[in-house]
């Protein structure tokens, strides 16, 4: 029994509670500082978790306690090579967002920090719990603070639009989660347990193929909304377009990963026959998403919407990797998850900085010639664009390459020709991704300078630099991630997969 994971989840929640009861006058001034302190403490705990579990196979730091025995709901938590990188990503991005707020000083900062801390609790809970009901609860906990973050601190120029975007996000995700809960109940009805580890070990034992397909469809739908899978991505561009910078960073950086994490943790091992039946459909929809997202980016005139659509494409790679049901595909999905969190998080920081300076994220409003007007910001943007388009040697490459390798040689029971078609679609998407990112660099960085200089401050660069450094480090040494995800993935798939 380890208290570390409950502590990890409780820390941000405690911080949020403290901010809520703190006297209003001083809390507003101290809000961001409290946020940084709590987020830093959480980050430190997550590092401790990493140190204690690094390189050790299997589920670690497990804790278990009956919570609502009448409903067979237990607190179960643990961390392994699949969840640990996501936990670290979450605590890091949350910390950087808090630091950004320290400089940015938005209105009603206390309430914003409170929301973000609740958000962090929900995300961390989702990544560490090992009980389906708890997973569902934490999955939902995230929605409310995110709704506030978008609706209250979103685009200053469009109050109606940001509220609408927040509501669409909320409704779609809640609808999806409701279906997902039905899937969980179906699983429980046939197996008598919500324990994710036990379900993975049973590997669908006790459920007929038909039941598994039904459960996999229901669970998959809920997760696919979050991921987001084409054509359920509709909420994403608006939510990102209207969200404040920190909201976008967390939304893209960690919230989307809750969906793909659920696929890996629950969908693949708990209902394997259902997953196998649905995997070709998932792969095709993922491939369509890759190409569709790239096309949508190419003609996009708003930088934040563009980065949002690029997420549809990148998450398409992640879903494709999962659909292959192979160790290499799942490894690729997990690495692409982390890479996308770092790179797109950074892209949203950059897009937010440009939007703040120019009052709009329209490419025409930002104007040309950033290389001359703000060389440091432009250089970071160009390198990040290269990372996002999957340049080998930067973090974005490895995950997407491995998902394509998985599609080249999918699990034996899957139709290979479908996956080869999806692999080719993924390749086309990769070229289109290069096309739109080079278009962005050409429209923004190059050309005669059009508007006033707007160089990145040292504070901003300091906030962004951890993401940039990690992008390079993971690009040169992807083994750092793969050595911890690979054993966990093999364990999950059973035997040598």
């Amino acid at each position, binding site marked *: 029994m380890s208290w570390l994971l409950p502590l990890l989840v409780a820390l941000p929640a405690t911080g949020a509670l403290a901010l809520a009861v703190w006297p209003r006058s001083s809390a507003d001034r101290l809000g961001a500082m409290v946020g940084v302190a709590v987020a830093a403490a959480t980050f430190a705990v997550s590092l401790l978790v990493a140190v204690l579990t690094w390189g050790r196979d299997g589920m670690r730091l497990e804790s278990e306690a009956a919570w609502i025995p009448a409903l067979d709901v237990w607190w179960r938590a643990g961390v392994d090579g699949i969840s640990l990188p996501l936990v670290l990503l979450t605590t890091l991005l949350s910390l950087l967002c808090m630091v950004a707020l320290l400089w940015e000083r938005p209105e009603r900062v206390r309430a914003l920090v409170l929301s973000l801390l609740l958000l962090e609790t929900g995300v961390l809970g989702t990544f560490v719990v090992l009980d389906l009901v708890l997973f569902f609860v934490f999955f939902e906990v995230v929605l409310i603070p995110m709704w506030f973050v978008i609706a209250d601190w979103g685009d200053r120029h469009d109050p109606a639009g940001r509220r609408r975007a927040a509501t669409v996000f909320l409704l779609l995700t809640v609808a999806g989660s409701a279906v997902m809960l039905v899937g969980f109940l179906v699983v429980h009805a046939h197996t008598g347990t919500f324990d994710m580890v036990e379900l993975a070990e049973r590997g669908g034992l006790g459920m007929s193929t038909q039941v598994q397909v039904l459960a996999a469809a229901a669970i998959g739908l809920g997760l696919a909304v979050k991921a987001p899978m084409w054509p359920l991505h509709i909420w994403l561009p608006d939510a990102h377009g209207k969200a404040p910078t920190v909201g976008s960073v967390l939304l893209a950086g960690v919230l989307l990963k809750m969906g793909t994490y659920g696929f890996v943790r629950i969908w693949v091992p708990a209902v394997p026959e259902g997953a196998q039946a649905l995997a070709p459909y998932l*792969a095709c929809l993922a491939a369509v998403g890759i190409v569709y997202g790239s096309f949508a980016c190419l003609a996009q005139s708003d930088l934040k919407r563009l980065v949002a659509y690029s997420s549809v494409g990148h998450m398409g790679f992640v879903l494709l990797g999962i659909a292959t049901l192979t160790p*290499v595909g799942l490894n690729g999905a997990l690495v692409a998850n982390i890479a996308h969190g770092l790179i797109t998080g950074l892209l949203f920081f950059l897009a937010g900085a440009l939007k703040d300076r120019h009052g709009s994220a329209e490419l025409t409003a930002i104007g040309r010639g950033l290389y001359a007007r703000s060389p440091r910001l432009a250089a970071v943007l160009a390198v990040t664009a290269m990372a996002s388009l999957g340049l080998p040697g930067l973090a974005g490459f490895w995950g997407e390459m491995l998902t394509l390798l998985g599609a080249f040689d999918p699990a034996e029971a899957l139709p290979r020709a479908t996956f080869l078609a999806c692999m080719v679609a993924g390749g086309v998407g990769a070229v*289109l991704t290069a096309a739109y990112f080079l278009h962005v660099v050409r429209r923004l960085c190059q050309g005669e300078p059009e508007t006033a200089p707007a160089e990145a401050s040292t504070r901003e660069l300091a906030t962004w630099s951890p993401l940039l450094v990690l992008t390079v480090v993971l690009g040169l040494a992807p083994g750092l991630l793969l050595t911890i995800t690979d054993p966990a993935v093999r364990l999950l798939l059973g035997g040598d997969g």
Partner: protein
Amino acid sequence: MSPGWVVVAPAAGAVFALAMGARPSTGWVGAGFGLLTWLLGLLVAVPALGDAAGTRTVLTSFPTGAAPIEVAFVVDSLAALMVLLATTVALLVLLYSVGYLAGERRRASYTALVLVFTSAMSLVVLADDFFVLLVGWEVMGACSYFLIGHYWERFEARAGAVKAFLLTRLGDIGLLFGIFVLASATGSFSISAAGEAAASGTMSTSQATAAMLLVLCGVVGKSAQFPLHTWLPDAMPGPTPISALIHAATMVAAGVYLVARLDDVMAAAPVARSVLAVIAAVTMLLAALFAVAQDDLKRVLAWSTVSQLAYMFAALSVGAYAAGVFHLVSHGAFKALLFLGAGAVVHAVGGTSMEVMGGLRRRLPLTFVTTTIGFAALAGLVPAAGFFSKDAVLGGLLDAALHEGSWQGWLLLVSGLLTVVVTAAYSMRAWLLVFFGRPHGADVLHEAPWMMHAPLIVLAACSLAGGALVLAPDVLDPLGRGPADLVHPVLAIATTAAVLLTALVTYAEWWRVDGIDPVARFGPVRRGLFAELGVGRAYQAAVVRPTWALARLVVATDRDVVEPYVRGAGVTAGGLGTALRWLQRGNAQVYVAAVVVGALAIGLTAGWLGA
């Protein structure tokens, strides 16, 4: 010593150069790291010259779920030659750039990119793991993109940079899939394992063929061969020293290197060899003809690079391995010389169009002498290196045509001999237009500083003496892959006569019309070649514009149809009614939906058929 140092040293130099910023001394720091890299390259490469197998070192490896990826290096004779070529040219270019960029502000990024580029090229030629190779391969592409766009205020620079990156990336996707096929055939990502599997016959012909056809996509993109040839001439708005490094001696040569490296797999895939032969035959002649018609000196040189690379592919496609590698090395020297010479000319007259040049022989005497050697090597005149290497290539083609009687040999031989004539014509024309005739433009010209001269002299010496490699077939081809003879006296006399005759005719034509461009009288043919037969424009119309149209359609669809559909009625009831109404509206968005659903259907049907 670990070969990794040749990769690490320039990368470290890049970080250093960035930290230095735009100080005047940044260029010297770059040259210093260039020297360090060159010395390390000597230490790594020289002992390995003539070594057939090389030594394999594995720095680290990590799991992927499939075969592990190993950060592994092999230094054999081919790798050693390439390291020497790349680090030498890089050093000379860095030194040259100190003078060339004296008046520029963007020194830091320039120097850093050249150093990263050198590091990436070393990685490509030393790697013994396909993914390690791919890292170097694409990082070079990215450096090339940034360097072509160095003068990003200029439209052509921006457009050329994007075009170069996208066309090479398109090919690289093929290369990636080719790697998948090779890896599934050998169960590892090791490059040498792929060669061994092909040589020992454990790799089937169909696997080798599929793999090499896919790999060739990447090669054709990187080396700007037909039909992905259009990017290289458009890459010329970059600084001229860059063109010497990237677009002549190293990056485009990486494609040739990869084919040479995978020679065993190529040998097991006759279909892939035939495809390569056709590509080479078309490219060498077409590019040479394009070179005849250009006004821009750098564009002439760019097309000549495309054409010369095709010679190397021609040799490799008929199994004349040693000849291909020989021409790769000798071309690296004389093309770097020509580009750096062109840089000195551009530096003096302030433009790349040959219309503003003329009569520079007296004003830029050293540039004149060294560049003349370069042109002689390009045209294949005795005793320049190009004479020997081209003779070796043509001899290899002749062997294939006469002794093996293969149609590929005949096709390449005819194309190769015609290209010899055309090459002599455009070399002579460019030489005359730049250095002879009436001077144009400014009166006050000055020769470049010594940092720019020294590399010209070194490269001129290499271009003259490089033919001596013919005496060291063990270095070029330690395994004795072929051809047996690198020297073919009868063929050499015949081609020399053809070259001299062509040069004479070109000169006579130029002299007759009093120093005016000798190709001016070809009228419509010239205009067609000048426009490069409209291939670029055709791609624009057939690919680029439809892509943009589709992109706009997707954006419109996502805004106008899908959103209300989901937000409003779509989620709950009325799905069928909406769909019916939707279909009856018959507008563009339905087509998009149809396309998407169709794509889905095709994918699933493919799976059903495959199952």
